[in-house]
Structures are given as structure tokens and as C-alpha cells.
């Protein structure tokens, strides 16, 4: 619809053409186009509420998840908005909506990731969450920041997915982190990759993810006003949760022992260099990609509004990152408080989070089932009964008429003589009337 509107309003879809035409388009049309195109981005980049496909897509092979569901395909939505920055800079309120959706998604998905135990699911929700960060970036006009995070995320998330694939390979398909028994001993290489990726995701100081997340937090606070603070705080909390669930996953899988093992412990071994080399490549990017990007971001920086003291943002970033990791360590390794106690105490909240706060349930009950029932009803009642019924009725009426009229044909001459007489007299009467009457 956005594209259709663009064609009808501006007569072109080439990027150069749009760039030129945008200035002369009315604000309402621009807003409509911007919102519609963002709608497409919401679906493609799995933002709330169109994110539900991403966790389910984890059923696919892991390299696929790594490539398209972490790094490339899902970022297409972010790319679209960045590409059309000439459009979005003209409709800043839409940008705020974009940022708001992004921030909400970031927080929402992080909360859901907290309570899952399937490694790929955790990473899936994490991706949804991180995409939210990117949208906050591009929504607020900090296109450089958004794309920067896109690139660093590609490195560490891609790495983490490959790591998950390696774990799956070693454990013959087991993905439940609570059924993994201190994998570090048997899979040190994979474990190192996990830690590197995790540091990136958690935004550990000096690692790539730290810089890019920092840029986005900067843009959020720099937006100014209440909105800026709301965005900043939600993203900061999100970052805390991110660090927490990431290292929850890593600690539980690689350090914590368990007796409830979901695989045959004797057959566990590293996958060999063919699987490790790609991971190492991504690991390098995860660790050092930040510096390279930081330079380009500094050069191409254009956030609207004033720059807040960078120290606030920087220290927040450091704090939440380290804090999250520490929290995970305390809870899962040292077991200062047993996590199960916490989940019992906050039982309904925990259960809600596990059901993605009932988003999918809502989808099913409000959209899918009624639609299917209505369709079935429409088919059986409207089509078969009513419309077709009318058709068959016409056929049946002809039948019935014939059935009734049939009785005229008695075959008995005396009856025919009667008909003849009646008919003839009627005609004579009519003729007489026509000639002599009015």
C-alpha cells in the first residue's frame, strides 16, 4: 500500500526520483506513506506485534537462522527506513512512532527472552529485541547509529547462532540449556565463541556491541524531553535484561552442572575446524568491529538536538552491561538466590512471560479462529445454502410447475373438449368486446 501510494502521489519509485519529489508532497500523504512503509518494516524486522514468526522460524536449520534471522533479512526493515531518510526527516512524528515501537519491542522481547530455556528461542527473542534498538536509532534520525548497531549485531548474533548450531551438532539436537552439563569442559572452543558473542550482545565495555548500543542510547537521550528520557530508560533497562539473559544462557549451558542431561555425554566433541573457522571470523568482528564503526559513526554523526553529556550515557552503558552479567553470575553460578524461588514467587508474571504475554494466544482467539469459523460458515451457509439454494430453487420451481401443469394432459377427449370450449368462448368474448366495446 505504501508503494502504491508513492506511485500515485509521486509518480516514481526510484530512490533518486523519490528524493526529488518528496519536497512537494503534502504532509498527510508523506505521513501515510511513511507509516505504511514502516508497517512493512515491522513485519519484516519482527517488531511488535508482527514478531511472532521469528521464534517459530527457529525450527529451520541454524546456519539459516544465523544468516537471515540475525544478520541480513530481518534487518531489511531497518535498511528501508534508513534508505528513505529523506522521507522520514520530513515526518518527524512518524519517526517518534518508529522509535517508540522499537523501544517497546526491545523491552518486551528482552523480558520474554529471560524465561525461555531453548537456546535458539532465547536468541530469537534477543534478535527481536536488538532490532528494536535499531529502529529507535533510525526513528530518531540517528541513521548512522542504527546501521552501526545493525552491523555489530550481525557479527555477534550471527556468531551466537553458529555457536548454538555447534552445540546442537555436538549434543545431537539438544537445545535446552538446563539439560546441558557444564559444556565448557568438552567444548572449550564453542564456549569461547559463546562468551565472545555474549560479550558483544551484552555490550561489555570496549567490545563492538558496546559502542553501537551506546550510540543508540546517546541518540535516545539526545532526542530531548520526556520522550527522550522514556526511550533512554527503557533501552537502558533493556540492555540490563539483555546482558542478564545472555549470560544466563551462557553460564547455565557451559558452567552449570546438571544430572538431568538431555544427550549422551560420551559422544560430545567439538565439530572440527570447518565449523570453527566461520565462528572465529565472526568473533573477530564481534570484538573489534566496534572501533572501526565508531570512527565512521563519529564522522557521519547527525543526531537531532543537543548532545547530552556523553558521560551519563557511557556510564549507564557500562553499568547495565556489567550489572547484568554480574546478576546472571550471582543467580545462576553462585546461586545466591535460587532462580526457581524467584520464578515461584512471581509465578503468574513468569508464566505470562513464557507465553509471550499472551500475544500469540490473542492472535489465535481473536483472529485465526473467528476467521476460520466465519469462512466455514460463509461457505456452508451462504454459498451452498443461500446462493446456490436460489439457483437450485429456480430449477426446482420449473420442475414443480411442470409437475402441476402435467395434470392438464389427461388424455381424455372430453376434458380437451371442455378446454376447447372455454378457450374458444373466451376468445369470442374478447373479440366481441374489442369490436363493440369501449
Amino acid at each position, binding site marked *: *500500500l505504501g*508503494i*502504491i*501510494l508513492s*506511485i*500515485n502521489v509521486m509518480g516514481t519509485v526510484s530512490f533518486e526520483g523519490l528524493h526529488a519529489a518528496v519536497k512537494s508532497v503534502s504532509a498527510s500523504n508523506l505521513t501515510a506513506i511513511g507509516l505504511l512503509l514502516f508497517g512493512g518494516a515491522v513485519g519484516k524486522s519482527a517488531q511488535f506485534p508482527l514478531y511472532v514468526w521469528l521464534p517459530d522460524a527457529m525450527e529451520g536449520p541454524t546456519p539459516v537462522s544465523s544468516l537471515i534471522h540475525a544478520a541480513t533479512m530481518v534487518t531489511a526493515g531497518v535498511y528501508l527506513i534508513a534508505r528513505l531518510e529523506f522521507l522520514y526527516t520530513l515526518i518527524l512524528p512518524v519517526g517518534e512512532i518508529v522509535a517508540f515501537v522499537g523501544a517497546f519491542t526491545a523491552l518486551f522481547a528482552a523480558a520474554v527472552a529471560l524465561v525461555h530455556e531453548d537456546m535458539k528461542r532465547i536468541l530469537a527473542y534477543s534478535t527481536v529485541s536488538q532490532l528494536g534498538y535499531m529502529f529507535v536509532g533510525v526513528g530518531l534520525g540517528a541513521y548512522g547509529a542504527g546501521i552501526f548497531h545493525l552491523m555489530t549485531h550481525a557479527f555477534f548474533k550471527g556468531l551466537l547462532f553458529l555457536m548454538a548450531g555447534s552445540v546442537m551438532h555436538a549434543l545431537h539436537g539438544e537445545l535446552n540449556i538446563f539439560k546441558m552439563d557444564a559444556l565448557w569442559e568438552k567444548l572449550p572452543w564453542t564456549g569461547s565463541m559463546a562468551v565472545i558473542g555474549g560479550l558483544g550482545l551484552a555490550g561489555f565495555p570496549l567490545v563492538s556491541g558496546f559502542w553501537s548500543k551506546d550510540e543508540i542510547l546517546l541518540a535516545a537521550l539526545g532526542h530531548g524531553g520526556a520522550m527522550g528520557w522514556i526511550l533512554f530508560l527503557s533501552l537502558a533497562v533493556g540492555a540490563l535484561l539483555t546482558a542478564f539473559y545472555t549470560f544466563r544462557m551462557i553460564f547455565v549451558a557451559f558452567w552449570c552442572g546438571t544430572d538431568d542431561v538431555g544427550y549422551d555425554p560420551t559422544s560430545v566433541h567439538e565439530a572440527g575446524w570447518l565449523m570453527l573457522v566461520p565462528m572465529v571470523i565472526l568473533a573477530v568482528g564481534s570484538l573489534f568491529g566496534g572501533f572501526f564503526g565508531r570512527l565512521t559513526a563519529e564522522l557521519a554523526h547527525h543526531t537531532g538536538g543537543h548532545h547530552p553529556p556523553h558521560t551519563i550515557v557511557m556510564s549507564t552503558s557500562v553499568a547495565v552491561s556489567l550489572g547484568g552479567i554480574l546478576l546472571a553470575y550471582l543467580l545462576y553460578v553462585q546461586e545466591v538466590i535460587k532462580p526457581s524461588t524467584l520464578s515461584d514467587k512471581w509465578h503468574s508474571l513468569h508464566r505470562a512471560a513464557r507465553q509471550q504475554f499472551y500475544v500469540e494466544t490473542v492472535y489465535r482467539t481473536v483472529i485465526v479462529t473467528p*476467521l*476460520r469459523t*466465519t*469462512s*466455514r460458515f*460463509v*461457505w456452508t451457509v451462504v*454459498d451452498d445454502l443461500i*446462493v*446456490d439454494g436460489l*439457483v437450485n430453487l429456480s*430449477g426446482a420451481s420449473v420442475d414443480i410447475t411442470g409437475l402441476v401443469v402435467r395434470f392438464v394432459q389427461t388424455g381424455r377427449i372430453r376434458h380437451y373438449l371442455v378446454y376447447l370450449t372455454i378457450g374458444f368462448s373466451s376468445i369470442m368474448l374478447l373479440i366481441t368486446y374489442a369490436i363493440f366495446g369501449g
Partner: protein
Amino acid sequence: MIPLSLLLVPVLAAGLIALLPEDSSLSKWLALAASLATVGFSVLLWRNYPAGLDGYLSGGLYEVNVTWIPSIGASFFLGIDGISLLFIGLTALLILVSVLFSWHAVTKRVNLYYSFLLLLSASMFGVFMARDLLLFYLFWEAMLLPMYFLIGIWGGARRIYASIKFVLYTLTGSLLMLVAIVVLHHYHASQYLTETMALSDLYRVNLPTGTGLFVFLAFLLSFAIKTPLFPLHTWLPDAHVEAPSAGSIILAGILLKVGIYGFIRLLVPFFWTLSLQWSGLVGVLAVVGIIYGGLVAWVQEDVKKLVAYSSISHLGFVVLGIFALSTASVSGGLLQGVIHGINTGALFLIVGIIYSRLHDRKIENISGLAQEMPLLSTFLVITSLASIGLPGTNGFVGEFFILTSSYESLPLLTIFAVSGVIVSALYMLRLLRECVFGEVSDIVSDTTSLHLTEVVSLSLLTIAIFVMGLYPKPFMDRLEPTVSEILKTARQTSGETTFDRGIQQADLPNDSEATQ
């Protein structure tokens, strides 16, 4: 020469085949030769038809004009313009596909079967080439008889009911059209003092308001039944399901298109103003058909019925495009008509193959096709994606064109129509999930591989899917000039010089043509 050949070759072949002894395999080869010949003619036509020709009022390429019934001015008047060209090509392709598929599928009364098939093809060619109203009507009616027999003799369990329903339903519409034709002819004779049935002459007729409305509605109803337009669509599911597979291919692929063709060839040019006035209502019915057809397709249990309802849904897009009444939207609609013929023809072909192997069409019984029949499943997936309108396939081209250009004149309806794309994904993907993927069900586990003829026919259609999807320009180049000529003439003859719809200024009679 070529128009006559297109008519004569199939008829002669049909006659020859009918004379052959009962179990001679020569009939198949003759039918194949005839259909290949018509394909050859279409290719010749294509190559000789220049890209910018409108070929419309001028009788087009290869005009044939012989006086036939002087007393009413009817003549044997054939001509080929851009629209005819595309639909003739479609017809030839689908007849070839049908012959190929029926090679192994039809085993009883084979000669009669191929005779009817070829007669049907001849009458369809005739419809697309006729420039004389009486001739048009003749071919229009001539399509019904072979179809009746095809469904009634070689069809499924409820074939008698379905064939009679089909004939009576469409015949009702056609008879209304006949009355309308007589009225038109009468008025032309009284206004211009010449007896004529030639379309180009009849466009000039001016009808008084009441009569005009009646004639308009008669034509509208007749074509709406054939298209089919909601709510006159109920003959379609039964006819399609009970027809033999090749019959379904022809029915869905071509027969449904004659209704569309009628809209643009007769209805709009005769009644420009009325068409504009009624475009809103017809558009609403079209969009209802899109969503209704799609949703009902989603919950079907019979594969063939699912595809039948999907036809109703897709043709809603076509009707929307046509009644948005701009050059771009009508061209898009007609192109999508051709595209739909290819895609749905392919779908029915696949369904026919499935039925011939499994002898069952219930979706719940079919599962795991991908494992037992991988080649067929590949074709099915490609065709389904084309049906949904995946970019890269022809389905996307048609739908996108229609939606973009219809937005100008019918914006609200277009917005609703867009949701129809999602619905088509719904039912197609459901079909794929239930039948192609998953565990292999009992009846699926014991199947034979595809015959050569089936592979060839499927490949032909698949190639068409991608060619049209990736490079539709040649098709549009031949379609658009004709369409814009038609719309221009329509506006001129209705005496309209201004627009109240704000459509492309380039379409006004005085401006030079600008391509979209």
C-alpha cells in the same frame, strides 16, 4: 490467412478424429498436431504484431471481412488486435497443455473427447477474433456445447448436475445478451439507416436512457456470470470439480476469460458513461469476490474446489482493474487475466495429476507429496507461489499493476483488495502445508512417476510463469496501445469530453499517446 487457419485447423482435425476407428491411437497424434499448429500460428502472429499497433478500429492485423447475411448486415468479420493476440496465445498454449495431459488421462471414447476439445478451441479462437456482433455471439454460444459434453461424459460423480447447471446458468446470461444484440441492431438501423452488426459501427449507436440501461445490464449480467462475479459464481465450483482435469484447465484458463474479454470488447465501449456509473458497484462485488472467494478457499476440503474458489478470488482482481477504467488498470486487468489462465491452468493440471494417481481429492487424505512425488511437488510449490503473487513470478506483475493503477479511481476498494493478497497466501500455504509437506499418508505412498507429457506441459507453464514474471514488457507493449484506443473510442462515442475522475490526462482524445 492466419485467423482462418486458427479456426479451420482445429475443426478439420476434430472432424478427422471423429471419423477414426474407436481405439486408434492416431487421434491423439492428430490432436497434438492440430494444437501444435495453433501454437505455431500464435507464435507467427506474435512475431508479426508490432509493439505499438493498436489494431483496434482498423480491424487489426489479418483482417478477414466477408459479407455473410446482407439483410441484417452481418458479416464474417475477424480481426486481431493486442488483446486478441494475448488471449489467442493463451488459448493455444492451454489447448496444447490439455492435449498433452489427456494423453494418458483419458481412456474411454478417446476420439470423441479430442474432437470436442478441438471444437472448443476453435470456438474460443473465434470469440477472441470476432469483430461482428452476431459472429461473436455465435462463437460465444458455440463454446457451451463441447464443454457440456466434456463435463457430462468424462466428468466426476456429479457431472450431470454440474454440466446442466453450467449450461443453463451461462445460457441464461447469453440469451439476455442476444436480446440486447437485437435491440442494438435495431437502434443502429433506425439511427444510421444501415444494417450492420460490425462492432466498429455499432459503437456509434445512441440508445435512449431506459433501453440503454436494459441493454447495459443484459451485457453486464451475461459477462458477470461467465467471469464469474460474485454473487453469480456458484456454477463454478461444481463445474470445475466435476469436469475432467483437462476440462477444468480449459474452463478456468480460457472460458472464464471470455467474460473479461466481453467486458472490455463490448460493455465498456458500448456504454462508457454507464460503465463509469456502475464501476463502483461492480468494483465492490469484485472485491467481495476476492476476499470471499479466498476465505472460502481456505476452508475447503477438496483440492479442486480450493483451486476453483481461488479462481473466483483472482478474477476479482481482474474485474477491479477493468472497472477502474484507466488504460493502465485495464491493461493490468487483461494481463492478469492471461496470467491467471496460466497459473490456474497449471494448478488444475497438477491437481489432475494428483487425482489420476491417488484417486482422491480430499485434503485430509493427502500428505507428504514432497517425499513421494518430488518433481510434482516442486511444480506445485512454484505454481502456488505464483498464485500468491510472489515477486519474480507472473502473479506479482499482474496484481501489482492492477492495484497500483486502480488506486487512482477506486482507492478505498483497492485498499481492501490488497488484503486479498494475504488471503491468497493463506489458502495456498495451507494447501502446501497439508498436502506437500508432512508425513506421507497412505494413499500417497504408492504412486507412479510423472509421464513425459505431464512433465512437458508443466514445464511449459512454469517457463511462462517466470518469463512473464521477470520480463512482462513485451506483453504490455502489445496490450496497452489497443486498450488505450478502446478507451479513447469509448469516450468519444459517448460524447464525453471532460473527466470527473481525474485520470491520466494523456488519455483524453486530443492528446498524443504517452506510455504509462
